[in-house]
């Protein structure tokens, strides 16, 4: 399998720069994802609360 993926020369400089960028961008991506997940949980809770209140009123 190894050499078939590697039929194209990725280039040393291109690997090094993208490993660095991939690391930084990856951290940003994970951070955004975590924030979104946390916010999403709060929003869902808010909605549920709201929903409960509405139901209670009815």
């Amino acid at each position, binding site marked *: *399998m190894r050499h*078939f993926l590697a039929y194209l020369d990725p280039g040393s400089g291109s690997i090094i720069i993208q490993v660095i*960028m991939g690391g930084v961008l*990856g951290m940003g991506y994970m951070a955004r994802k975590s924030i979104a997940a946390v916010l999403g949980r709060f929003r869902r809770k808010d909605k549920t609360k709201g929903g409960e209140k509405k139901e209670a009123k009815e």
Partner: protein
Amino acid sequence: MPRNSKQTQFLPASFRDPAGHIFRQDGKIYRQINQSGKDDYELMMSSGLYDVLVKRGFLIPHKETSLTKLGIKDSRAYKAIMPEQIDFISYPYEWSFGMLKDAALLTIEIQKICLEHGMVLKDASAYNVQFIAGRPVFIDTLSFAKLSRQYWHGYRQFCQHFLAPLALASRVDVRFISMLRDHIDGFPLDLTKRALGTRAKLLPGLFMHIVLHARSQQQYQKKRPAPKNFNLERAKISQIALANHLEKTVRKIAAPKQITTWGDYYKNADHYNQSSFKKKGVIIKDYIGRVKPKTVWDIGGNDGTFSRIVLAAGAKSAVCFDFDYAAVESNYQQLQKDKNKNLLPLYLDLSSPSVNTGWAQQERDGLAERAEDTKSVVMALALMHHLAIQNNIPFASMRDYFARLGEYLIIEFVPKDDEKVKELLIAREDIFTEYSIENFEKVFLAKYNLVSKDEVKGTKRTMYLLRRKK
């Protein structure tokens, strides 16, 4: 070897990948998958990746065929597939800015879908994309591999094939796209960096993927990158993040100013009065009705107005070439709104058409080599005076080239006392003593039979339908 030969003909556009290659047999294109490409191919089919990509119209569908039936006796062969057949193969140096940008976005979207399925695109060549019915479609079924590296193999290629020409076209000059013909592996990043100058620094994505990337290439040219242990989750995250960033960068590259000023050529142009324009349309419709062509090559077809007329008249497909990037772009954008999408807008400088190029001059075909010979029509409207007077091309040479491109020719003769020809002669001496309708007929009818000759009423122009002599 003729295109419809029963013999198997290996096509030299795909020799680099050991996982398989394409070949032609009996006029049909097939792809051989080698034993070495078996695991990746089967993973693509079983992981659901193929179904997702085909369903969304991103990847060309295929059918598996029998190796024995095709008479393949290659010990490396595992399977053969027949992809949906494509009428006309075009190349990135013939695309408009918008086409190249859409092809880039498709490639990156596919990479993201691959990552969701535990796979990657093992390359990011712009030649893996073709335009079918107005949309970019990925055609290399063997470009998919199991995710097994921390980094993306196709990153350098993506930057060279897509990001660099898009950035140069947007920020320096749109004509950079046609210069890809001289750089079939994309623009080298150091060259791009130099040509962009400080303009690259205005967009962080370009600064990262072109300027820093070029510097890194220069600095680590002969250094072996430290091997990293493969971690599937980390590889996925960093590659998705990279793909997202590349996508964001591509989206932010604005269309070049040169092509955004395109107005409605035919509506605004004073040389076309509506009634003679309509008369020309009626003549063309009549010609198309008589020939019933499979394909029409509308050369110098501007924004595709007459290409749409030939499609409405019953031609199965049309390729519309023009020298003006703004017209090609306008044509492509209009195509997105059209119902009949069997039109392919392309950039072409007919005074120097696409040539056979790449390794051994065989990887990419020239224009004439891609001509579908039978029942095809070459249409050259309001073109001949540009060729004859602007480019000094003799009638006989014009005739011979058109005859190579197709069996039928629809050609418009524009005489010297036409306003457009007068404009061309405004600053130069008239050395074109041979340029007359009599001489045109004499030269063209030596190799063509006259099928029809019609004057465009209200103008001094004449239309011809000619059929090549056998």
